[in-house]
């Protein structure tokens, strides 16, 4: 036997380590060799890190509207001053009054530099009781209308970068919450189905077939539209999550059931039974650890589907509704092709959507390959 992942250690201790390693350790060793999956893992950890620190990373108040700063193109940060010293700045904005409509519009004023400041104080934010007004970057001495518009602004003059940060948090965590609910349903129904067998199994299997043959999007749309408009943002958030996960648990249930059934026949389960272990102990101590990695793989493949569902629903205006911000809500502004031609940066929310979904898919593939450590 060869142990390529332990090449640097001496063979004797490597063999020993291999023999005594737990299932999850073995999976992890195999997973580490999967380069694309490792990169994806890093991308996702970064994405979730950004999502957690979303408010800290915003440069402007994501809800702050200002009609005068609508559709400002993305602004680049200039890192070095004229004399070459590291002193990042952006160009200021100057208000120009339209002589026909008397509306004040802001355009970029390249004659005026506004310097950036790291760890600046700006609007107050709070997350789960933690409150602060500290932000990663801010402006040193801003004038009226000045702002850091890294990705430009939307029609209402809201900063897209800041909105994207908050949206990332909402969309990524709606995926996690939804998958947790689906996973719970999948484990309970799949497990019951496999353990009891007989007519219970039959009913659950038929239920899975029925749910899988439903055209999901029309049903989601119908159920989501029926949510009362008087509900708060949080209530809608959870209702949408539940609606999405109610139709997405079937794949997880199938994985759980399949694994349960195949493990039932394994010698070590028989050994545990003969040794007098209780049913509960066999399931949790012996069976669960050996298919935990399969479940993790299935979850990481189910997550992107959840995220796409939420994004699609919100994109159609039937998921999360403003003032809530999610990727779908942001992309809703990009629906109109004329607007999009005028302000293509409105499509920027598509980039994180694609990257996160791709990363989850690669991660899931890597995990699935690694999930059979003895294979």
């Amino acid at each position, binding site marked *: 036997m060869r142990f390529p992942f332990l090449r640097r250690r001496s063979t004797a201790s490597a063999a020993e380590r291999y023999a005594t390693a737990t299932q999850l350790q073995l999976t992890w060793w195999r997973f580490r060799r999967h380069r694309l999956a490792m990169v994806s893992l890093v991308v996702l950890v970064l994405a979730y890190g950004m999502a957690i620190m979303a408010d800290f990373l915003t440069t402007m108040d994501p809800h702050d509207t200002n009609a005068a700063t609508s559709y400002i193109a993305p602004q680049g940060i200039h890192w070095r001053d004229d004399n070459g010293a590291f002193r990042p700045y952006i160009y200021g904005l100057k208000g120009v009054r339209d002589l026909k409509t008397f509306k004040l519009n802001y355009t970029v004023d390249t004659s005026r530099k506004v310097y950036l400041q790291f760890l600046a104080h700006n609007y107050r934010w709070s997350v789960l009781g933690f409150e602060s007004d500290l932000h990663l970057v801010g402006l040193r001495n801003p004038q009226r209308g000045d702002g850091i518009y890294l990705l430009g602004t939307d029609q209402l003059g809201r900063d897209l970068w800041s909105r994207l940060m908050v949206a990332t948090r909402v969309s990524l965590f709606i995926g996690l919450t939804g998958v947790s609910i689906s996973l719970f349903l999948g484990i309970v129904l799949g497990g019951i189905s496999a353990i009891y067998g007989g007519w219970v199994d039959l009913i659950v299997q038929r239920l899975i077939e029925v749910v899988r043959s439903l055209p999901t999007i*029309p049903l989601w749309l119908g159920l989501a539209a029926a949510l009362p408009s008087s509900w708060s943002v949080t209530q809608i958030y959870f209702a949408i999550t539940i609606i999405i996960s109610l139709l997405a648990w079937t794949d997880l249930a199938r994985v759980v059931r399949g694994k349960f059934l195949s493990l039932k026949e394994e010698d070590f389960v028989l050994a545990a039974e003969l040794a007098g272990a209780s049913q509960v102990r066999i399931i949790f101590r012996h069976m669960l650890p050996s298919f935990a990695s399969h479940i993790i793989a299935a979850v990481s493949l189910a997550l992107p589907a959840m995220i796409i569902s939420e994004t699609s629903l919100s994109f159609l205006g039937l998921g999360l509704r403003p003032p809530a911000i999610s990727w779908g809500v942001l992309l809703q502004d990009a629906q109109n092709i004329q607007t999009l031609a005028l302000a293509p940066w409105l499509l920027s929310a598509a980039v994180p959507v694609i990257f996160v979904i791709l990363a989850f898919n690669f991660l899931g593939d890597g995990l699935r390959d690694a999930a059979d450590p003895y294979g």
Partner: protein
Amino acid sequence: MITFLVRRFLLAIVTIWLISVASFVIIQLPPGDFVDTYIAQMAASGSQVSAEAANAMRQLYGLDRPMYVQYGKWIVRVVQGDFGESMEWRRPVMEVIGDRLWLTLLLSFAALIITWGLALPIGIYSAVRQYSFGDYAFTLLGFIGIAVPNFLLALGIMYFSFRWFGASVGGLFSAEYTLLPWSLGKVWDLMKHIPLPAVILALGGTAQLVRIMRANLLDELRRPYVVTARAKGLTERRVILKYPVRAALNPFASNIAYLFPYLVSGSVIISIVLGLPTVGPLLVESLISQDMFLAGTIVLLLGVLTVAGTFISDLVLMWVDPRLRRQMD
């Protein structure tokens, strides 16, 4: 085989029943009954509905009775082909839906054909020429197909065609045909418009199917019978097409039941982005304006047609694939 058919048929009935319950729930969910909505709408447009008329309507639709009685009345009327009236359009629901339902099905079916037509040759190529440049290229394309939600793809294509050609690629008909009654020219026009949305719709499913096909065929190609066939001097083409490909075709058969609902679902969203005259935009409009009879009917009809389509495709596949018939016995 008969038992299998009966089981499938019963399952389809149960599914349709579940869909009908869900549609009914959707119709019922908004606060107040729909007579209230109707009265409010009439009031908004200046006319009055007397209390007697309202009560008569409530009695007609059985709104004063318990929920299951209401459902029973509704389903009886639905089975008779009476889907109620659209409040927004003041016309029978079926009239409002019109051709849209068939266009939705046509689009989904076209996407299904494209999915198969693309996935089969690409899957075979990728497996036979494993790790070649083409294999990597298709794998990359496949991942993009999975990662880009089809509404984003539609949006991107709309944007670039607008930027580069200054023209919108949306719609299923040219402007001059939109309002005309059906004719050969209009059908031809439709045939010219349908490939683009169908390809957009098909891409996600194709990517998944290619990956399954590739993996299955790779498994088959390693089997001893392939070596035997080669040793006997069969041409490479015959070796691959005659047995391993046919054996690896299983996912095509087993996945269709889930592919078709997936495509119908997707068609709703891309129709909205591309402005296609299918039921998708109508569904979203009706849901936003709480035109519940219209919305519920669309959900119901889409669901029923999906189930029917899946059932028919099951039959066809059984007719085509002898192994499936064997398994059923």
